């Protein structure tokens, strides 16, 4: 009998501990939005979602990951191309999922004619994730738009985003609020975000020669085309022209990966996108903190290059 009581108590205490800590996490997650967010990428998400909510009269939508965020200055691009462009770049982790949500949200209130997507090429080789989707949903009704996604993956992603990921971020926020240094960083980030429309970069790459001969990826994960397919369908339905271009890359990796880039373009064209061949090269002078990030000092120069490249594809 004693053994049974011990065993019951063990299971009960384990379950209570887990339930207690999870409830705490869930509560933090629920009330998390009332905290100011200090983590740069959380701030970026809030910044881009606010822009999307406030946007009116936008005809050219610039979507993508950090490569897009660092490469194109939407204001200058509008000036050069005579469009009304808005850059809503997130990060690599958000993938094409956030692009799709943002497109859906923007077309409701804006006369969008062009959607320009820019991602780092190896995103096609990475595993399918729904985090970006859940973090950029307009409301629960977006959940109905995920037909065909594996139920287990859906459950994993929902749990991850609404329980663990958000709780972690809220805990980080609370911790950072307690430390003055972090708060100072937050102020710098907020001010940089307001003026440069993307989060600040770290130190520039020391040597781009390290990337010589480096093929970024060699496979295309079929699941990664899921949201691209939905973007293409939405564009077709609304008479929007979807354009896809690869992120700028350090020269060595670009040369080694040209065959892969061409293969990706074939797949993307099949979905109905107009594609741009190759990618703009980054040198030691123009590279930022990643092999696909333009240095902030040459962002306008690259914006001009992209405007020239994309102008023939844009009809005003």
């Amino acid at each position: 009998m004693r053994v049974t009581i011990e065993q019951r108590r063990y299971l009960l205490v384990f379950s209570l501990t887990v339930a207690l800590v999870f409830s705490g996490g869930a509560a933090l997650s629920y009330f998390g939005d009332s905290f100011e967010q200090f983590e740069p990428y959380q701030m970026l998400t809030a910044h881009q979602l606010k822009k999307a909510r406030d946007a009116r009269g936008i005809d050219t939508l610039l979507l993508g990951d950090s490569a897009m965020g660092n490469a194109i200055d939407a204001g200058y691009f509008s000036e050069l191309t005579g469009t009304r462009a808005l850059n809503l770049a997130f990060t690599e982790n958000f993938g094409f999922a956030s692009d799709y949500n943002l497109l859906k949200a923007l077309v409701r209130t804006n006369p969008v004619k062009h959607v320009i997507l820019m991602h780092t090429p190896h995103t096609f080789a990475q595993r399918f994730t729904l985090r970006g989707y859940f973090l950029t949903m307009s409301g629960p009704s977006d959940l109905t738009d995920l037909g065909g996604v594996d139920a287990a993956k859906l459950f994993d992603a929902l749990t991850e985003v609404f329980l663990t990921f958000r709780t972690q971020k809220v805990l980080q926020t609370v911790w950072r609020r307690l430390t003055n240094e972090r708060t100072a960083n937050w102020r710098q980030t907020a001010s940089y975000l307001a003026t440069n429309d993307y989060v600040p970069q770290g130190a520039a790459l020391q040597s781009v020669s390290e990337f010589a001969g480096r093929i970024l990826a060699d496979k295309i994960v079929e699941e990664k085309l899921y949201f691209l397919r939905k973007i293409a369908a939405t564009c077709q339905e609304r008479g929007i022209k979807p354009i896809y271009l690869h992120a700028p890359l350090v020269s060595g990796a670009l040369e080694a990966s040209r065959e892969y880039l061409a293969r990706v373009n074939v797949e993307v064209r099949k979905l109905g996108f107009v594609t741009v061949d190759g990618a703009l090269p980054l040198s030691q002078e123009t590279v930022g903190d990643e092999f696909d990030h333009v240095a902030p000092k040459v962002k306008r120069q690259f914006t001009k290059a992209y405007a020239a490249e994309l102008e023939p594809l844009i009809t005003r």
Partner: protein
Amino acid sequence: MLFNSYFFIFVFLPTCLVALLAARRWSTVGGELAILVGASLLFYGWWSWADLSILSASVAINYFLALIIGRSEQRFRHPFLVLGIATNLLVLGYFKYFNFFTKTLNAVSPTPWSLHDVALPLAISFFTFQQIANLVDVYRGHAAERNLLRYAFYVTFFPHLIAGPIVYHRDLAPQVEDTGRRAKLLENLNVGLTYFVIGLVQKVLIADFLSPYAAEVFQAAATARPLSAIDAWGGAVAYSFQIYFDFSGYSLMAVGLGRMFGYRFPQNFASPYKALGFIDFWKRWHLSLSRFFRDYVYVPLGGSRGGKFKQARNVLCTMALAGLWHGAAWTFVSWGLLHGSLIAVNHVVRGTDLGRRTARWGERGFGRVLLRGGMFVALTLTWVVFRSENLATLSAVGRSLLFLCDQPLQPRYLEDVTTLCAVFLALFVVVWGLPNAAEMVDGARDGDERVAIFAWRPTAFSAMVLGVAFVLCIFNLSRANEFIYFLF
């Protein structure tokens, strides 16, 4: 679906446990097994419904072959055994090795052979070996399983299906009938839960933490980027710990899941980094695979009979095959041959005066620390062979490990070396100083006094610690990678 996924932990596993409890209450052993087989096929099919047909066909064919061998007269048994083993090896060979051998042939032949676009069915190495073992056991006189449902259960039971431990029919068959298993429901559930959470901690909090460090270094080497000796050693040691905690974590989760359903699987690890030689290492590392190769390859080849030379030959053949089992690449074969050579040398040395003196010296104190340290370095070097995707990567990492590179002694790819060193230090304490999970949980319960102070008991405190550890793992699950041994 992975053991370390939210869906498995919060939906699949609880549903299976509830279904099993219901079956135990209102049904017979047959009902219980039907639920477990159904759940296992669903679990496997979730990965790939196409592969499920291969698994099902393999189970059906091997079931009938085992029956035929079991019922045949002695003189007909041998041809059926050969047929069974050949069929299994042909299927495994086609899916796993066809392109490897074709590529190798193309490298030396003027006429290129075309490659086949085949995807390796998940867990094929595991369920093939398990069933070959069963055919051989039946040939040797072990009773063949006559009930197809029971046979399907032995092969497909989901806790061991994907990456082991390799469980034999003779391991599981007596447990199905054991009525005590049903009576110890709560105890088994708690012990299983404890193993599962310890495994989850090893996988999610340790192996997945170390994974980026090793990956960054080996990726740099694979793309011919310069590597300093500090990078190479940091990456290699990180990988040594990663592969151990990854696979040990997986095995503990499998053992724990089996126990939750009332079945005891053999343990797969017995503190391998405490080994004092290569023979000792293989008595502690991936025990179920070692047992398979010992019983079904090494011993039939002649084992230690016929003198030191023949023994060395048998060890080399066995380990080369074990290397090839791990993957279709020459680096795996080289790794197997390297271990085979070191085991053969170990066999020779331990028979000499020097060997006996070293063994005595290594039994305690400073000698033991030094010998374990030496073994860890040697094992780390062999893991580099295992981890390298090709010989060029191996050569690049090897040169840096041996300080033959012209790079300054500073890290280029390892971030926060101080934290990494602290983590290494803590892990050395764990792998050298503490008893392993099986000793703590089952060893202590079986009265092993050496581990008394670390013994797991079902107290409220240990339940709270386990609960917090579980939640920590859940919070870190999103960065989790697939298990290394899934690739095999």
